[in-house]
């Protein structure tokens, strides 16, 4: 399966690996935004997840502990955002930006001694029988556990948001906070939980970068993945399954440009490396041209029970 000098059997798994961090972060942020909160600190929570996951995994040599601690670290960091925006009524945009800056600074600080070390490798989890299918097997059914987990998370989130009472309450809070409050739902408490879920997912996504995609720690290694996750949520019109599609499209572009760089296409490297960001802009334009805006009604609006 070689197309234009690029082997598809290698391309598809690489695509899934490169999409998983943004997928995890974006599905978390989708829930946060569904609850009516805009957390621009995704990048900061991801990089904290990346560094904490890396440190724990290197010290214990068990990657799963790394992922677990990364999710906890991301959630803990998001609590700062939650307290500031939900209790102290601070501006969500400014607080999110601050969270990103704190995350970048803190991660560089605690990650310094770990630069240049290789992380323990994640074991591939071959699905019995399915992974033996020629071509399709190595493409889709022999990945590490986190890749499957990320797809599972999308499925569970889609189910909860669309089919359960919890999802209905979450959407009510995000669409019309005053009405939800009048009905007796605890707006602030629900948002607090949503923000922490977003933080945990971002942390998990960050750890996937430092433990699987790159397997090492370098300062600022998320390189805008958190921002791309934010763009994906808009791209997906806040719908979980579309987040998956968006993330894989984006992963495809990233991997394709790396492959094109490797086989030495006559396009300058810089143009190829900026292409994921340019494509994100084009997609944002396309969405507003052809899609319809379905942003949660109370997105980024402050709420206090007294108002």
């Amino acid at each position, binding site marked *: 399966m070689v197309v234009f000098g690029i082997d598809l059997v290698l391309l598809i798994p690489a695509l899934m690996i490169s999409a998983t961090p943004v997928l995890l972060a974006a599905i978390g942020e989708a829930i946060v935004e569904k609850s009516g909160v805009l957390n621009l600190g995704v990048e900061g929570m991801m990089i904290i997840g990346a560094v904490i996951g890396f440190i724990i995994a290197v010290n214990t040599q068990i990657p799963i502990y790394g992922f677990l601690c990364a999710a906890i670290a991301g959630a803990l960091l998001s609590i700062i955002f939650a307290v*500031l925006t939900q209790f102290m009524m601070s501006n969500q945009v400014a607080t999110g930006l601050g969270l990103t800056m704190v995350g970048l*600074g803190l991660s560089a*600080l605690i990650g310094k001694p770990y630069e240049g070390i290789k992380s323990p490798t994640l074991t591939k989890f071959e699905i019995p029988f399915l992974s033996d299918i020629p071509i399709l097997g190595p493409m889709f059914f022999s990945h590490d556990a986190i890749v499957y987990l990320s797809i599972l998370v999308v499925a569970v989130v889609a189910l909860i948001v669309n089919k359960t009472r919890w999802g209905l309450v979450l959407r009510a809070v995000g669409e019309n906070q005053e009405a939800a409050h009048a009905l007796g739902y605890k707006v602030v408490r629900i948002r607090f939980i949503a923000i922490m879920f977003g933080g945990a997912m971002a942390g998990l996504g960050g750890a996937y970068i430092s433990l699987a995609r790159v397997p090492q720690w370098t300062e600022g290694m998320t390189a805008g993945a958190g921002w791309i996750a934010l*763009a994906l949520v808009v791209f997906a019109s806040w719908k979980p399954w579309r987040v998956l599609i968006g993330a894989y499209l984006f992963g495809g572009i990233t991997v394709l440009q790396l492959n094109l760089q490797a086989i030495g296409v006559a396009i300058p490297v810089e143009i190829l490396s*900026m292409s994921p960001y340019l494509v*994100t802009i084009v997609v944002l334009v396309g969405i507003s041209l052809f899609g319809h*805006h379905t942003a949660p009604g109370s997105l980024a609006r402050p709420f206090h029970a007294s108002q």
Partner: protein
Amino acid sequence: MFGLLLDEFASAFSAIKLIFWDPLFDESFASYARPQLLVKAGPIILIAVGLSIGFKAGIWNIGAEGQYILGAIFGASVALSFYPQESIFIFPAMVLAGALGGFIWGLIPALLKVYFKTNEILVSLMLVYVAENILASVSQGLLRNPDGMGFPGSRNFKDYPSAFNEEIITNSGMHWGVITAFISVILAYFLFLKHQKGYEIRISGEAPKAAYFAGINPSKTIIFCLGTSGLLAGMAGLFEVAGPAGQITISFNSGYGFTAIIVAFLGRLNPIGILLAGLLMALTYIGGEIAQLMLGLPGASIQLLQGMLLFFLLATDIFTNYRLKFRSL
């Protein structure tokens, strides 16, 4: 136990003194640090003033770093195309080109927002990564010093008097960028105090619906805010590359575009406040450098300190917006 705690306090105090006090008042650092205060505060203030105009209107340009890079590239290209001619018109032309570069880069998210309703936060930020790649490309290709023996980076403007953004008073750190920053503070102050445009911007941010019904065109506000902040960031980039940085290199930009966001908020979006916050932030940069040298603190700890500063400020917002009231039991 108590002694140990006292030691901790003493060392914390000495670190704070080293970062906030010694750069200005300790004789061994002051000769280097005092001029640096203006050198670092200049671009930060210039960018932050531009950003604050948009922030007041609820237009979030967080891609100032990209506009800063593009301004530097545009301005430097003008100078390098005239090299080695000497003329007093070269530097003004560079400033104009720098402003234009930043303006164009700021206009992209503005026009996309006006015509396609895209989110300016995301677009302006994505353009930072695009700008960084353009910078990497030109510093290794188009603008590379032909006499540089293959090293990346442009000619050094220190060796090109017409293009060099020299200190106006020796050893003061005062260069044209700092002057422009001060002028921008004054202009912004009058924009919000006296000018109708400033009033319109404030209304658009505080009550978008009221602004709309009052006949204030939201598209014009968006273009004005993003254009102006891009223009100022572009100029800041040019002054930096022609002066303190000296040349276009892959990493000549040092994150001022992002620091300026913090400064804009620390200054409470008020021009005078931004002036003071910019000086404070410059001090943390210099103090941070000294702390790196003397205490072996990693450079990132200063970034952390700056972020935390913003958090504490945001946390106190509640006290300015709400009144404390103790319930009688």
